[in-house]
């Protein structure tokens, strides 16, 4: 780096601004100030405050005192909490698996020579950009117990006799919210993986074809290994967002029927805001942190591996 003083003939009396301008560290910190201040005040501080609140018995309207791990002890004996943990894992694992499989499939399809490719890509992304709450309302109507279009169609096709109680039955409700989540998540996975697919050089496939590799072998031995790093990152994001999902459940079931679809995020909201138990809600939210950390560490190593594959050239 050229030093900033090179072009200045009179170094003796610099104004304050010029001196700041010359010192990269001071200037850098000044420029970090707006972002840093906002993030420290509204992100780091509340993160710590949340952990602290989880150790108090604060309720809405009353400043609570420190009660140690009592909230966590209560939660430990709370079957609803454990049910929400189970639901969260079920929801995350099943939804992510479907998102990955279908997203990869869609990406492979879109990677072919197709007419109107740009338009197709734009259409595919629509579910992702439309506000979740608003598309969830459409799903709510699609899952309506009396007027569901799915039930109507299945009945007309003679596959069922009675309308399906989508959101009223525990397992149906779980399947229904997972389906809605998958619907919304496929575009993100597909478009990101498509971008990854397009970076794989065509020559590798040509070489594989010359070696007599079948389509499946080309996928397994060329596409998949080269795609692994980006899959790791995309799926970490996907898992992270699914694990902490709130909107979809809030709109479709509010955790019902009988807490069968409560996730940790919705339970934490339920206890903290309508229930008023801020301390307990914060404890549930804090209980999500270890899992998130695990996902982040996984993502970090995914990124590292990618950098290593690229020859560490870009840093």
């Amino acid at each position, binding site marked *: 780096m050229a030093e900033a003083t090179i072009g200045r003939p009179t170094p003796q009396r610099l104004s304050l601004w010029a001196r700041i301008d010359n010192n990269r560290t001071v200037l850098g910190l000044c*420029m970090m100030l707006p972002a840093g201040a906002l993030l420290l005040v509204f992100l780091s501080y509340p993160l710590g405050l949340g952990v602290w609140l989880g150790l108090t018995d604060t309720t809405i309207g009353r400043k609570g005192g420190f009660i140690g791990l009592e909230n966590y002890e209560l939660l430990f004996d709370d079957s609803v909490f454990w049910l929400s943990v189970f639901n969260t894992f079920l929801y995350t694992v099943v939804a992510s698996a479907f998102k990955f499989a279908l997203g990869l499939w869609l990406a492979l399809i879109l990677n072919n020579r197709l007419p109107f490719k740009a338009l197709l890509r734009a259409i595919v992304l629509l579910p992702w950009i439309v506000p979740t709450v608003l598309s969830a309302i459409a799903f709510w109507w699609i899952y309506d117990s009396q007027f569901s279009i799915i039930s*109507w169609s299945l009945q007309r096709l003679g596959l069922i006799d009675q309308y399906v109680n989508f959101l009223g039955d525990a397992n149906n409700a779980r399947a229904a919210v997972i389906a809605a989540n998958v619907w919304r998540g496929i575009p993100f996975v597909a478009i990101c993986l498509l971008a990854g697919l397009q970076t794989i050089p065509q020559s590798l496939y040509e070489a594989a074809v010359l070696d007599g590799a079948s389509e499946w072998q080309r996928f397994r031995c060329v596409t998949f290994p080269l795609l692994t790093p980006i899959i790791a990152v995309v799926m970490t994001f996907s898992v992270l967002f699914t694990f902490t999902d709130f909107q979809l459940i809030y709109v479709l079931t509010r955790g019902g029927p009988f807490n069968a679809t409560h996730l940790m995020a919705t339970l934490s909201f339920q206890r903290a805001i309508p229930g008023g138990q801020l301390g307990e809600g914060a404890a549930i939210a804090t209980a999500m942190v270890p899992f998130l950390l695990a996902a982040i560490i996984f993502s970090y190593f995914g990124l590292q591996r990618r950098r290593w594959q690229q020859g560490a050239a870009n840093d």
Partner: protein
Amino acid sequence: MIRLRRPVDEGGMHHLSTLPQRVVTIYLPLAVFLIVLLFPFYWMGLTTLKPNEEMLNLQDFNPFWVENPTLAHIKKLLFETAYPAWLWNTMLVAVVSTFISLFCAVLAAYAIERLRFKGARATGMAIFLAYLVPPSILFIPLATMVFKLGIFDTKLALILTYPTFLIPFCTWLLMGYFRSIPYELEECALIDGATRLQILVKIMLPLAVPGLISAGIFAFTLSWNEFIYALTFISASQNKTVPVGVITELVEGDVYHWGSLMAGALLGSIPVAIFYSFFVEHYVSSMTGAVKE
């Protein structure tokens, strides 16, 4: 490694495969994907235009079509509810927080990527980690803070909290863009006596316009999408955003006004959809770029 089995045959390169094969392996699944992905939107639009008697009578009317389209649901939504106010609130909050975030992110990204001050790498990593902190673990402590600051139930609460998830993303994205601009341009300007601020405004920003647009669109759609903060921090009807208003105010007891609900969902989706359609290439590149960085 790949085993050599038989000469190039049925698989072939993609463009060599026959048409019927392509129909089965590509076009058919693609069509199914598109139908499933688009059906909820079709359903939203259809229900918006359907008169109630058609909607609730599945015996005499084909539910997949509308025979007597009506604008009654939209009219009810626009003139009998606070929907226009919600639209305005959402727009205002999204635009203001997007601009705040872009301003902060440009400065931060330039500092991290180009000034390389002491601790720049660690700061970059911290920004990335900040992006991974989900709103669902922050909303309770933020609610208590918002209350203490006396900005509960105001748009300011949302304008101040939305940048927490916008800044990290925008910064990360812009860092990638700044990285692609050659150092030489900056060095020339430094030799000519330009200050860092001049370099940023006159050289870097004009070159990073595509990045700014990407970050802006992404920030806008994310703010438009936001739900949990708006649900927690806002209680008065006239201050609500579209997602919160639709879900809390249009549902009255057990009577669901599906027509107006769908109209609300549709009208709330259209602004982002239009905005997005103009810049779809930027959006895609920002999304994939951010994942790849």
